């Protein structure tokens, strides 16, 4: 066991964990931030996507050792009142079905829009092809990202 210092959703956190523990399980089992989901454990589905130092990563394949001292944003830290443009767009497009994959999609979309505020359909498709939705919300996800981009650019 070793001690690690992380900044999670703007809060300083010091935790004890085995160095090879994936960030996913630190977030879920130690910090109780269960909005970040386990689904494949191999970086294949994107359900565990979080933002580390400004870039989206699969938290199931990033060890806490490698994430130490990083600035981490999870779905819980996106806004205080569910009013981030992505969250508002997700509501407007009524995106979720089972909802399990949606935090991962929203965090991938967050990464995309932070680098490309006005993405084309193709750019959305290629930026989010690492995220899997089993229920079939893809059509609405594309729509929501366009809504969010438009509100970020005009709002």
């Amino acid at each position, binding site marked *: *066991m070793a001690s690690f210092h992380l900044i999670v959703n703007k809060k300083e956190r010091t935790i004890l964990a085995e160095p090879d523990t994936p960030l996913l399980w630190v977030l879920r089992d130690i910090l109780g931030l269960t909005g970040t989901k386990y689904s494949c454990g191999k970086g294949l589905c994107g359900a565990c996507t979080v933002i580390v130092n400004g870039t989206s990563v699969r938290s199931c394949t990033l060890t806490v050792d490698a994430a130490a001292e990083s600035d981490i944003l999870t779905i819980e830290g996106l806004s205080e009142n569910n009013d981030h443009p992505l969250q508002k767009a997700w509501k407007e497009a009524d995106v979720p079905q*089972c909802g399990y994959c949606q935090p991962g999609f929203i965090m991938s979309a967050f990464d995309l829009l932070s680098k490309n505020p006005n993405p084309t359909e193709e750019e959305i498709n290629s930026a989010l092809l690492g995220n899997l*939705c089993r229920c079939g919300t*893809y059509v609405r996800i594309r729509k929501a990202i366009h809504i969010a981009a438009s509100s970020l650019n005009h709002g």
Partner: protein
Amino acid sequence: MKNTLGRRNFIKLTASASGALVVGLHFQSCAPQKEPAENFSFVPLIEIDTEGWVTLIAKNPEIGQGIKTALPLILAEELGADWEKVKVVQGDYNKAYEEQWAGGSYAVILNWDLMRTAGAKVRHALLEVAAQKLGVPTMELMTRNGMVVHEETERKIPFGELVAEASQIPLPEEVEFKPIETYGLIGKSHPQVDVEEIINGSARYSIDVHLPNMVYATVVKNPVHEGRVAHFDATETRSVHGVIDVIALDNGEYGGRLIGPNSPNFVNGVAVLANSTWAAFKGAEKLQVVWDNATSRKESTAGLFERFHAQLHETTMERQDGNVVQAKKRATSNVEYVYEVPFLAHVTMEPMNCTVDFRADMCEVWAPTQNPEALEQGLVKLFGLEPEQIKIHLPRIGGGFGRRYYVDYAMDAAILSKKMGRPVKLTWTREEDIKHDWYRPASVHKLAASLDDQGKITGWRHVLANASRMTSLGREGRPAGTEIDEYEFPAGFVPHLQLEYGHVLSDVPLGQWRAVGHSATAFAALSFLDELANINQKDPIDYFLEFIGPPRKVPVVGDYAYDAGRLRAVVEKVRENSGWDTLLPKGQGRGFAASKDSGSFVAEVATVQMEENNQVRILRVDAVVDCGIVVNPSGASAQVEGGILEGLCAALYGEITIEDGATVQSNFHDYRWIRLHEAPEIHVEFIKNDLPPRGLGEPPLPPAAPALANAIYAASGVRIRKLPISTQVF
């Protein structure tokens, strides 16, 4: 319209200490003359407090199908509630709720009357009290937006001011339902009730449950579907920091692999218990297990398909109309093709998991289950518990698709909690989830048609051979019953028709899936119809409509008739919406398919483009649906979009293969799922009518695969007779 609720439970009103009105269901277990036992059998359904806040209990498991929104909406509509002042709370499992499961697209169908009756009874009580207060007859009053309204005098009383008195009066035995044309909530789109929690990560799924003193567990199951643990070495596992214990799971100690007519027990394996999920996963990877697979038939997919093909010639008759042999002799031409569909997994995004707190007097369970009743029965069977000792919570579920109809993973968790004497959260890895699924049965279909000189179908023969999900694991029952039945389309539409079934016994675990049987039979039958249209050089939609004939009720079996008019209407509309009769650029093509499932009619047109490297790109899918009244259009459309994408995805990529009695696939790299860039535009339209709502979870799926295969043929001339498509076109 009068309520038609005549079941074992009845709706009863109770006043609470706070002055709120509480209405719920009483469950009469078996003896109608006896008063039901207190507490155990009463479950709340509606609570209205003195502030006018309405709390509605969502009774069925929410797997993403939107039922937690749809059923309360029906109740709120009948009550006349203000949806902005409605809170929806997920109910625990209780027999009094009845039909508390998610499967077969049945939830709205089965609860339509119950929800309306409950809402109407409470509305009636509120109206009576308001009538006294206002000094007007009850019949002059109505409820709207959480108030009782007297339109003539424009007087209004909010529900909150009526509940204290309303809770003191008996509910009427019979109530009138609201006229459908007065609906204000039903038919308008409402975001699902948990959307705020989903988008900020606070929605709690089973996998998110945390209990004090909880142990985290995972399992390593025998990869071979039938087999046992011979012995294992856990030395390395126990050296992993955080590992608490290692326990073998032997279903032989718990009634074997099958514990009820339709409830399979867990697969044998070894569980690792730890102080974190990661420690359990890491410990599991280090386990050295020697499996005893002496009893396994060491089946393979190739071997099973050989047996399916052979079994096409040795069948049972499931339906026989006229004489197909005579029809064949008299025909101008006869056409015959064979179609194949593979085993399919469910891959719910939330893997199998369950949290159990097994105490001396009570077994408390948090389970992502579509079938809480089977879970209760399993616990009764395995541990000899009384139903009163079992409490099952139903958190939000990360996808179901039929997988969670079976409760094997919950049995694992219950055994571990009992053995540990502590709460246990069991999480299966994705690998275990895929390898120990209950697969959609693979099947082989021989379709044969006899045609007259006009190309009209005079004879139809559909022979299906497979391992039946009915007899999977040695379950008893009529094997054909779950695979092809006498209702199968186009029964009733062809004078000479024969449906046959060839049964193969196998060890592969088989079970429910989204439109499980129909997803296979519709692919075969609707691809075949397209082939017949092309052979006759006719437009596939023209040919289909000629085949269906004019609007009428086509008798199929007993009282059941197929409404050809409703089917025609969705087909004609999808023809228009998809631009079916317009020209496409070279390399593109449209395919059509339509069917009925769970009482709903769906027609789909897929438009595809063949790319230079022989890849298929699905450009667009149009769907027209007649499911009767559409309760929540946004949620309903989501079901259609989801069903279509699942159908397309399975058609393109879905395939579970078996080698030496074990599943080959293990994660999303080798069980490929459709991704964002592959998802086409989807246009959905619902036919508007006032018919009772029918199922929607499954009906949009079956036409997707044949529409896609037919589109590929139109675009390229390549006929797909075997799924998945990626094994042939790509």
